[in-house]
């Protein structure tokens, strides 16, 4: 009988460990003072992301977007070329600021489908005209996401007529001018309210949830945000901004699918802004600063210490810089595409080369599953 006691002991101890290891017990009180060799502190990385990158980017966006709201009010009160230009500049500033937020489609942003609500392009010109004529906008409907956000503003400020004078004329029209002004205002306020909803959610609770979820399961913050950011890079930065317009997935170039199609010189500005934001996130560089905190790059450095592997973080940074250089040397994307230039296709290839480094090398080094695959392994 005595001997049995100790089997039972082993069994119970094992079951206890088993029970404790479920995700529900992940209470985020992980301590890192053990004798750890790969001693990377994921929660420090999450804090750096939240406090020095994500929340400052939202705050900055909100502050700068006030300028758009103000410029729009001024334009509405006094439709003039000067006011149009001011509004346009404010819009472009904010559109660039948006590139620092767009990749963080997690938590409140995900719940609110922020990216689709703010930046779905190409915008539907036909539907916009109808909405203006009817005076009903339905901005909460998923089907109307391509009638609002920055792309709709691009059309309304740059594309609705050929010259500035003609654009002004649209808004001064005695019959439909006011309807256009009202619609423009609604688009501006829709952006403002949606982004600030998400920003507020970050500062009033979600930040702590995000940082506390510092485990290593598929639903932990690190795993999820890494997946989200890679998804962004692949689908929205690589494909959305370049791949689709140059016809990489259809065989037919489609310049009308460019971001900022109605102000073609801006496509490049926005792509470079998003590439910068992505690289800063990768390196943990503080928003609009040069200081760095824990990041995917420093995580890779920590992992290298035990793996004796090649320096993947350097390879990724070098390739991102290659991509940036290629795009910087390009002219206006729309013209490059229309002249079927080989250089934009080459620049795309440089962007593309980063994808396997992120999706294969980085993710497997960190043992992060690509997307939440809920099935057994063996």
């Amino acid at each position, binding site marked *: 009988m005595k001997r049995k006691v100790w*089997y039972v002991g*082993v*069994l119970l101890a*094992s*079951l206890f*460990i*088993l029970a*404790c*290891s479920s995700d529900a*017990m*992940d209470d985020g009180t*992980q301590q*890192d003072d053990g*004798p*750890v*060799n*790969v001693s*990377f502190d*994921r929660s420090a990385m999450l804090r750096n992301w939240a406090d020095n990158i994500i929340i400052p980017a939202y705050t900055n966006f909100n502050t700068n977007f006030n300028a758009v709201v103000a410029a729009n009010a001024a334009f509405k009160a006094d439709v003039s070329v000067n006011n149009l230009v001011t509004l346009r500049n404010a819009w472009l500033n904010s559109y660039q600021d948006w590139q620092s937020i767009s990749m963080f489609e997690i938590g409140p942003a995900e719940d609110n489908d922020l990216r689709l609500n703010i930046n779905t392009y190409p915008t539907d010109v036909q539907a916009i005209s109808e909405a203006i004529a009817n005076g009903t906008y339905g901005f909460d409907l998923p089907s109307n996401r391509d009638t609002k956000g920055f792309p709709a503003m691009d059309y309304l400020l740059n594309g609705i007529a050929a010259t500035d004078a003609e654009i002004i004329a649209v808004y001064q029209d005695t019959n439909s001018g006011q309807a256009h002004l009202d619609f423009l205002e609604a688009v501006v306020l829709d952006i403002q309210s949606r982004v600030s909803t998400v920003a507020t959610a970050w500062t009033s609770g979600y930040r702590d949830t995000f940082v506390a979820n*510092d*485990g*290593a*399961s598929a639903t*932990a913050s690190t795993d999820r945000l890494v997946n989200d950011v890679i998804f962004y890079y692949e689908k929205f930065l690589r*494909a959305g901004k370049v*791949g689709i317009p140059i*016809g*990489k*997935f*259809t*065989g037919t170039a489609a310049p009308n699918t460019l971001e900022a199609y109605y102000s073609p010189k801006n496509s490049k500005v926005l792509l470079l802004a998003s590439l910068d934001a992505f690289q800063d996130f990768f390196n943990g560089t503080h928003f609009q600063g040069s200081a760095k905190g824990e990041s995917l790059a420093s995580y890779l450095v920590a*992992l290298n210490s*035990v*793996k004796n*592997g*090649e320096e*993947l973080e350097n*390879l990724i940074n070098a390739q991102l810089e290659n991509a940036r250089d290629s795009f910087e040397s390009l002219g206006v994307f729309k013209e490059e595409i229309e002249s079927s230039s080989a250089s934009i296709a080459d620049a795309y290839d440089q962007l*593309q080369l980063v994808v*396997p*480094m992120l*999706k*294969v*090398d980085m*993710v*497997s*080094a*960190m*043992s*992060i*599953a*690509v*997307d*939440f*695959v*809920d*099935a*057994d*392994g*063996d």
Partner: protein
Amino acid sequence: MIGQLQKKLIQPVEAAPLAVFRIFFGVMMFLSILRFWANGWIEKLYLEPNFHFTYYGFEWVKPLGNFTYVLFIVCAITAVMVAAGIKYRLAITLFFLSFTYIELMDKTTYLNHYYFISVLAFVMLFLPAERYFSWDAYKNEKLRAKFIPAWSILVLKLLLGIVYFYAGLAKLNSDWLVKAMPLKIWLPSKFDVPFIGDFMGLEWVHYAFSYTGALYDLAIPFLLFYKPTRKFAFIMVVIFHVLTRVLFPIGMFPYIMIVSALVFFDASFHQKIIEWIAKRLKVSMALFQNTSAYQPKGIKAKFATGVLVIFMAFQLIFPWRYLLYPGELFWTEEGYRFSWRVMLMEKSGYAQFKVVDTKTGKQFYVDNSDFLTTFQEKQMSFQPDFILEYAHYLKQHFTAQGHKNIAIYVESYVALNGRLSQPYINPKVDLTQEKESFKPKNWILPFKDEITGI
């Protein structure tokens, strides 16, 4: 010599261990099916995908739409029937067929332990598992036997032994032993496991886990078989499998292995389990306490023995087929499956398919998420047979869409056990011109490193 062996194999032994094995197997299978269903995996893995990766030679095995549920119901019910020993022969046959059919529907979900269950079920088709403490024996006096030939329990021990020992052999390679890969990648990410999490980043822990893992797999069949070490071995089994359950997402497998390992224990131990169950069910054991010994005879017995001997020989030889292929096994995966190679690789890939009109030169890339689930895409991107089958599917799809003169190329990268990714499939080969077969796939680019060992 052979006569002696034969005598040993057919000598009557108590049937209790096999009865207990049958009961636990049935119960475990029933729970596995329930868990699978409850997790929503029937929809997610078999009903939602538009396309399924098939096994070579079993292309006709596909999900059956809503009848797929029927398949799972059959599987669950027959598992219970096996446990209870109700119409055992029919139940285990249907269980084997339905379970194996399910596994053959999509190789994306291939797991060694699913294969193990199919193998066990197949062997159980030929075992007299319903002779003792079963509904069938309860009802039919002629079936009842307290003794069965020794081979019917030995064959299960041998199977378990093969699984462990071959899994151990597979670990005898330079990545596992010299580099402590892939545990060196996997363990540090388990920093949040209670108690042991803090040690998971230590390099010596990675090596300790690698070596004990290999040693465990190689030694455990013998330690279980040899009576003086049996209890110690079983404790090791429990600790090992619980640890793997804690560290890795491997579902029911650890429990199945723990329960299966009980078969090594003496009949008296199993007798106690049966008496315990009998008490709960208020079944009188007196009925089963006869002294009759079942000994299969005649053509049927010869057939069963023949099948089992051939099958076990196959089990011993089949995992070595990789030796016939050139190139690194971990890289090409030719002969990787069905060989008890468990948790050996951290391998991931990226595959981008290019569709080219060979006449006009017009080309475009495929968005894999249009056709595959994330799970399928993940599995496809580092396994050549998946890549080939998918390329053929793409050709069929785009031809149906009206594209002509289609050639399909893939640009792919694969990273293996912590090495940087390198190009995987020859990007200049039109995959529509290649056919699946057992022949070496010469369109896989060579592995730029070397892994030595078995």
